[in-house]
């Protein structure tokens, strides 16, 4: 139950993109077409979950007992980037060159996304148990996936509308993101405590 509670809290109440405002640059740049956003969202979900799950034992079993908390960001970035590139290389080992290049480009974008660092950092700051940490990691990834897909869908609709010239491009994307932040703020609290 703690796992499910943490998962839904991280995905909706404390959404990593539109409530905590982490990783928003990638979302705004890459959520152009809904089809691309699903692929990117899934990659981000996997990377966030893996970085959170791997980051918990690194902090609580290695860094904290030895008083090396200040090394946490470096350790998280190194481990998560290594995992992301390793998985990408293994998954595309027998694929054509073009597909491997595309996968490596996606791995670079995912490794540079702030979500992969924010998830283990927030787990470390919260001082949670492992099941809660796993739930938070998976939930944060799910929240990022939902945020990316929803934003791409809304943006696709905006592309079909008449937007004033002064707002075209990044300004309207930021206004859209602002309204989506308000929407997530409105549903916060609806799912917390559901599985207690």
């Amino acid at each position, binding site marked *: 139950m703690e796992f499910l509670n943490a998962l839904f809290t991280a995905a909706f109440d404390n959404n990593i993109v*539109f*409530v*905590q*405002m*982490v990783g*928003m*640059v990638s979302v*705004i*740049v890459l959520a*152009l*077409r809904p089809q*691309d956003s699903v692929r990117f969202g899934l990659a981000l979900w996997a990377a966030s979950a893996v970085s959170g799950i791997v980051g918990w034992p690194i902090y609580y079993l290695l860094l904290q007992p030895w008083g090396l908390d*200040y090394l*946490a*960001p*470096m350790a998280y*970035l*190194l481990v998560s*980037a*290594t995992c992301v*590139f390793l998985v990408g*290389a293994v998954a595309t080992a027998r694929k054509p060159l073009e597909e491997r290049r595309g996968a*490596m480009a996606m791995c*670079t974008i995912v*490794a*540079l*996304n*702030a979500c*992969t*660092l*924010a998830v283990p*950092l*927030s787990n470390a*700051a919260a001082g949670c148990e492992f099941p809660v940490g796993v739930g938070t990691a998976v939930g944060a990834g799910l929240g990022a996936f939902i945020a990316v897909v929803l934003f791409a869908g809304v*943006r696709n609709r*905006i*592309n*079909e*509308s*008449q*937007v004033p*010239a*002064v*707002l*075209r*491009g*990044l*300004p*309207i*994307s*930021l*206004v859209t*993101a*602002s*309204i989506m*932040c*308000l929407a997530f*703020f409105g549903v916060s609290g609806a799912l917390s405590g559901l599985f207690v």
Partner: protein
Amino acid sequence: MALNSYIAAERQKRLEALLGTPTFLVVAGALPGLAVANNLEQGFAIGAVTAVAIVAMALLVPVINGFTNWITRIPVALVVSAAVVGVCQVAVYVADPAISEALGMYLPLVATNALVMTFVAKSTFAVSPAKSTLATAVFAAVCALAALTFVGLANGILSAGEIFGLTAYEIAETPIAVFGKPAGSLLLLALVAVFTQSLEGGLFKAPEAASDGGEE
């Protein structure tokens, strides 16, 4: 189904049009610190750390490229970026522990953004007449600092009615206090983006001819 080459080319063109503008540099530099730019001091602190990190990584990435290959480049660059931001974090803690506590996990997150900004400065955009990665990075750093400081100042005024430590009047209970939330910070950044875009035609390269309707 394989991605149609025309769709891929069109997507790439849209991305280049989005990334190759000063507005993107301003927005991308300021976005990660937006959540904690709740008052002038915090906005300036996170802006300063972002600026230092961007310039430091613009200087260090060419050195890192010299002794890494394509698979180790990103992890090494990320660790170096995290180290630079760690030093900045200590500096902020020494300057004001309360602000360091308030900035929380958003300080280390500047590490990833600094690297992203360096790659953007290197690959897609160079400010005329400098036309170098370092000059573009310095421009991005200054813009990020200015944008975050402005957003922090505006948030402080609109959410708590405070300006330079003085409380003008209590507006925290009024609807305008939403500007203290992330949604309002994004609206303020959109205002900054509108301002930067309006300058683009005059000071920087002319934007693409506007199409009829739509986002482009």
